[in-house]
């Protein structure tokens, strides 16, 4: 389990035990009802009656939700549905007007964000928060938890060299995995938008989280890299971690998530495995749109081109008439 991994060992290939775990966890989901707020066999996060209002606007109003341990759960929904706000509440970055929520059975109301992170629930931000004037590798090192050199006296007495080397090794491995190793000694502020997303995700992994919460990890990442990132996210699950992510990219959601939760206007409107959720009428109406599962295959493309040509022809005709 990630919580027991030592700082140095993390990032290594996971054992077979956890791999079996994650398959079991996924299979357990087969028994779960496909309705909002359904109970999971082994929930890592449970939230009840969480409401967050901004003035008159209710951004989040979640009656009950459970996140299954050891699987990849996607949180989808239209813009302004309250996904980010719900993330903020869960991780202690925002205080709701009411509600209770827990992580590993421990209630989190009133627990400050940094303690939530220490418990093993680490999140990234939709608008990336890289530390611009620190080098990329320093950004990564900051992510490691339990650093003795972060205590004043040990820092002053310089008792941190050994641990720093371990952390740096781990950071370099992750940077390589996220294709940022060439940027290692650049200022994080000089990275592109997509690279910042990658750095933030890699940095969150430095903390060896049990639950990784990613807010739109793929936004602005190029298609080829997206593919390899999908692999990384899956490997997080195989390492025994739980992943909860917000994403608008339906291909990604379909491809990697084991469970999908749909939010709209602050409430959870649907839950289920990707296929069943994406076939759900209300989800299609509220969010996906009726053409969501069509790739731009040749016939569709031809149709569109034909329609466009017809339109152009139409306008030229009108112009000719004039």
């Amino acid at each position: 389990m990630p919580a027991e991994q030592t700082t140095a060992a993390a990032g290594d290939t996971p054992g077979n035990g956890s791999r079996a775990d994650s398959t079991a966890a996924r299979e357990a989901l087969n028994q779960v009802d496909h309705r909002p707020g359904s109970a999971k066999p082994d929930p890592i996060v449970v939230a009840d009656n969480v409401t967050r209002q901004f003035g008159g606007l209710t951004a989040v109003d979640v009656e009950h939700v459970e996140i299954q341990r050891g699987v990849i759960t996607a949180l989808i929904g239209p813009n302004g549905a309250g996904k980010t706000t719900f993330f903020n509440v869960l991780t202690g970055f925002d205080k709701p007007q009411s509600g209770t929520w827990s992580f590993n059975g421990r209630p989190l109301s009133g627990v400050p964000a940094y303690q939530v992170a220490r418990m093993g629930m680490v999140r990234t931000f939709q608008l990336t928060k890289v530390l611009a004037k620190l080098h990329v590798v320093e950004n990564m090192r900051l992510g490691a938890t339990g650093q003795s050199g972060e205590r004043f006296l040990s820092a002053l007495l310089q008792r941190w060299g050994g641990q720093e080397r371990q952390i740096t090794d781990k950071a370099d491995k992750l940077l390589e995995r996220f294709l940022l190793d060439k940027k290692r000694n650049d200022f994080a502020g000089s990275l592109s938008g997509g690279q910042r997303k990658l750095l933030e995700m890699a940095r969150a992994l430095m903390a060896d989280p049990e639950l990784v919460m990613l807010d739109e990890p793929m936004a602005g990442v190029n298609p080829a890299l997206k593919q390899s990132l999908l692999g990384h996210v899956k490997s997080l699950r195989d390492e025994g971690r739980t992943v909860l992510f917000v994403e608008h990219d339906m291909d990604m959601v379909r491809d990697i998530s084991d469970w999908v939760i749909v939010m709209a206007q602050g409430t959870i409107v649907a839950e289920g495995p990707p296929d069943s959720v994406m076939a759900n009428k209300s989800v299609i109406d509220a969010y996906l749109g009726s053409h969501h599962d069509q790739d731009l295959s040749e016939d569709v493309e031809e149709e569109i081109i034909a329609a466009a040509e017809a339109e152009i022809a139409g306008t030229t005709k009108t112009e000719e008439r004039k």
Partner: protein
Amino acid sequence: MDFQTILSLSLQSALGPTAVIYALAAIGLNVHFGYTGLLNFGQAGFMMVAGYALVSFPIVLGLSLWLGALAGLLLTVVLALLLGVPTLRLRADYLAIVTIAAAEIIRQSIGAATLSDTFGGQDGLTGFIEPFRALNPYTGSIGIPGLVTWSAFDFWVMTVGWVLVAISCVVIWLLMRSPWGRVLKSIREDEDAVRSLGKNVYSYKMQALMLGGLFGALAGFITALRSASIGPSFFATDVTFFAYTVLLIGGAARVLGPVAGSIIFWFLISGLGIFFAQATGGADPLIPASIMTSTQASLMRFIFLGLGLMLLMIFRPQGIFGDRRELAIDAR
């Protein structure tokens, strides 16, 4: 025009006790502002609390001067706690407002007539210097004859002062290359990111406020020792702003920035001051009284310093030691 004198007096001031005081005060502000991004506009308050503690122990309580130094350090930590507890959870501007107000409150209270029996009101306190003077190993005047010299006492203050500056710089260097310093710099960049990685931002900001305040305390000690007296007027608000100027000249978030900044600042301030005094003084002044009288000239150094600061901000905004590339990031 006597350039020899101008150079000599400028050097005397650039390396003298005053430069030590501002170097120490700016080292503190560097921890606050340069590394952690905390806006402390009340460094003079920290200096004053420490300075008065040092002096009050022998004068008011009849105890040892050295015990007073210890008390001064403790009281600055307490002051940092008092200022930090209510403000460090809030946005950065609150600390700025609270510190500038607190520094003035401290100054007005200690200088108040009601407390003049204890703290000597606006006249301040004297007569505590003997234990310090007794340790002075120097006699006569010291320096490079013909170029720059100091009195034995000034040189003793300087010795102690520059040793403190050197130790402070080593401490800053050790701390800021460590993971602890990395957390401070990260807080300056983005608090929430640091929080999301499991660091107690509030506690680190408090530690930074205390540490920077302690360097301010050292500056306060030297202020009292240098003049062999202490008074509220030594700790006016402009002390803090001069210390910020020193920091910006040298370059924020650089170990030696405050030291270089202080030396340059005091070299220029004295040099310009003496130059304009000479240029407008005497029987046949270089600048005739119709253009500028000597009273007006005494303000010219500040005008030129302001001009210099503007040019610095335009052409080398990162300060003397700063890193241009870091600054370029802000432009994005």
